[in-house]
């Protein structure tokens, strides 16, 4: 069982049959107990649902999932944006503020299908992302769904060769942090104005949530798109391989 995370990278390591068997059996045992638990213990039926229902009017939105994500448990969402930022920082190449955010380059060849997609689909997806963001207040939708769509649009627009995006330009860096920064600023400002972290006043709750979600959408979209670029464009991910370490 303890061979189990043999994460040897170039691993020609093939477990001996017995250890495979042991690992398999112990996981089967775990599965057995998990299923046994599911069958025999129905668990607490209430959950937090009733509390959410009671307070939904104070939250500023009518969709309960958005209320949990952006109001009741907004702190989790804030830290989650921090997780995204970690990966972006880790993946982005070294700083290059010379090149602007978007650059039009002359593509050697035009692919008719991609051109058509860019012209017809991309604007529609963009509008739909905006709609999802707005709709998140009352029905399924919100910053993450909209951000994912935005990222898709970015990939469609920028990976075809007619544009080049510099995700490390000053502009891009600001866009990447704006979601988390807005969250932090609003949260801290509310300590001053409302006396508690992320304690939205009832009148402004909807507006503040929309503001945070709007900024978060931009950050998430750009972040996901930059992660995508870092994987497909090998020259992109060149994080200072040759620098010496330390002073």
């Amino acid at each position, binding site marked *: 069982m303890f061979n189990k995370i043999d994460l040897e990278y170039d691993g020609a390591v093939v477990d001996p049959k017995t250890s495979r068997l042991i690992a398999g059996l112990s996981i089967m045992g775990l599965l057995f*107990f998990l299923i046994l638990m599911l069958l025999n213990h129905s668990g*607490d039926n209430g959950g937090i649902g009733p509390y959410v229902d009671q307070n939904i009017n104070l939250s500023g939105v009518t969709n309960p999932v958005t209320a949990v994500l952006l109001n009741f448990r907004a702190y989790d969402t804030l830290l989650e944006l921090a997780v995204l930022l970690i990966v972006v*920082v880790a993946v982005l190449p070294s700083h290059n503020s010379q090149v602007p955010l978007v650059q039009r380059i002359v593509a050697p060849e035009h692919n008719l299908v991609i051109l058509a997609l860019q012209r017809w689909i991309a604007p529609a997806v963009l509008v739909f992302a905006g709609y999802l963001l707005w709709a998140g207040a009352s029905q399924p939708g919100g910053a993450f769904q909209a951000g994912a769509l935005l990222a898709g649009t970015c990939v469609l627009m920028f990976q075809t060769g007619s544009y080049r995006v510099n995700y490390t330009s000053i502009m891009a860096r600001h866009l990447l942090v704006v979601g988390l920064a807005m969250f932090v600023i609003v949260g801290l400002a509310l300590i001053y104005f409302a006396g508690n972290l*992320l304690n939205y006043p009832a009148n402004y709750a909807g507006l503040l949530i929309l503001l945070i979600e709007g900024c978060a959408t931009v950050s998430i979209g750009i972040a996901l798109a930059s992660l995508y670029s870092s994987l497909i464009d090998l020259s992109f991910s060149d994080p200072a391989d040759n620098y010496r370490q*330390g002073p």
Partner: protein
Amino acid sequence: MSNLNSSLLLPILVFLPLIAALMGFVISRNTVQGRINIGLAIVQFLIIVLTTVLFLDEGSYQSERYEIGTWGAPLGIDLVVDGFSILMIALTGLLTLILTIYSAVYYANDAKSLRFWPLWWLLISGLNALFVSGDAFNIYVCLEIIGLSAAALVALQSTREALEAALRYLLVGLLGSLFYLMAVAILYRSHGTLDLTQIAASASNGLPDQIAMILITLGLLLKIALFPLHFWLPQAHANAPTPVSAILSALVVKASLYVLIKFWFEVLSESTTFGASQVLGCLGAAAIIYGSWKAYRATQLKVLIAYSTVTQLGYIFLLFPLSEHAINSSSFSGSASQAAIYFIVAHACAKAAMFLSAGNLILSQGSGEVAQLKGVVTRDPLNVLVFAIAGVSLIGLPPSAGFIAKWLLLTTSIESGQWWWAVIVLTGGLLAAMYLFKILSLAFDNEPLDSCAVQREPRALSSRVLTAAALVLALITLALGFNAEFILNISNPSAGVSAI
């Protein structure tokens, strides 16, 4: 400010490093980074000192709560501090300050600093957030922040070994977090809340809680790297940049340990059994023996220190059998928990000092080979001194923090009638002496190295700061040996109260 309360400062502890990370990401000028970050580290340290003083001043040692958004559990997320977490936060603040100063010099003229600082502050905000968190799912998010940023920091080195180690570290971390998340799902299913205190209130010895406890223990043991799940640790800690190695060994593994202790003794203490605690103790004992052996055999200085971390974590796991037996029900109080707390603090300071001095030695010698250290004492006496002091603490010789920690462990194991753990502790001390004196005897060797192409350069200011940082940590280790009461007082009365 009569109504100033330590709990009011808790959000600041999370948000200040976040702001620092955002600034580090947006500000692109390499030259100002170091100074800004030292300033922020000092501010953070002062806030943490203020929080600690306020907490101690309140004197009740009750756990304090901060309700985010005034919703309160179970709807919202509560931040909670008790004696143990205050101690961990104070440790984080102290080490962050010293290591930030060290890093500011270490990365002074390095393009990597643009990437290093945001990750560094995100890691610290994750640590702070974890230590103040009172919510099961929030702890999952914090664990992920810590795991991802730590892996990204290891990968900073960009050598093949470092990337491999980082990848392995990342995947192990993700696997451990997934185990933990599964346990959270099960806990939510059976308790209908995510707040730790409320889960503890309705915890029972039923099957769901037991499975959750097993999953949490497995997942966190992976992250803590208890033998035999330690396979990822030596490479990750040895290949990271020096300040990162220090914080990984001193704080990051302790963060997972903190969560495990919280669940084991406070939240799900009903589901723990004597047998399980003995198993953990045995694994700890195996870690002590095996880690010492591997450390003795290591040819790279940082690998040796990393294996020593495996060993020292083994000692902390003796806490589980010892506290179980002492009072017949597991709770995080009594002499065993004091020994563990003291061990955590002592090891954090000593190991950070040791990694820093090793990093300095490697910088000045130009190689991480143990054999290169022959006669190094004449060339770099101060760093060898730091290494020796830290080593004394790790072996457990007086006067050092390590001595007190081991003394507490020994007396506890004798008192509780489990003398076999005392034998392990003593053997471990001898083994530690074996591998550390090997280094020191090499360092004090007068024979000039044959292939000694290392020419002495005039000591730059930067290298003096690097040495000073290591020296300060070593002196703290010594001072802790004389002020044991101070640490024990922070944690002791609270531990009894916070154990539910």
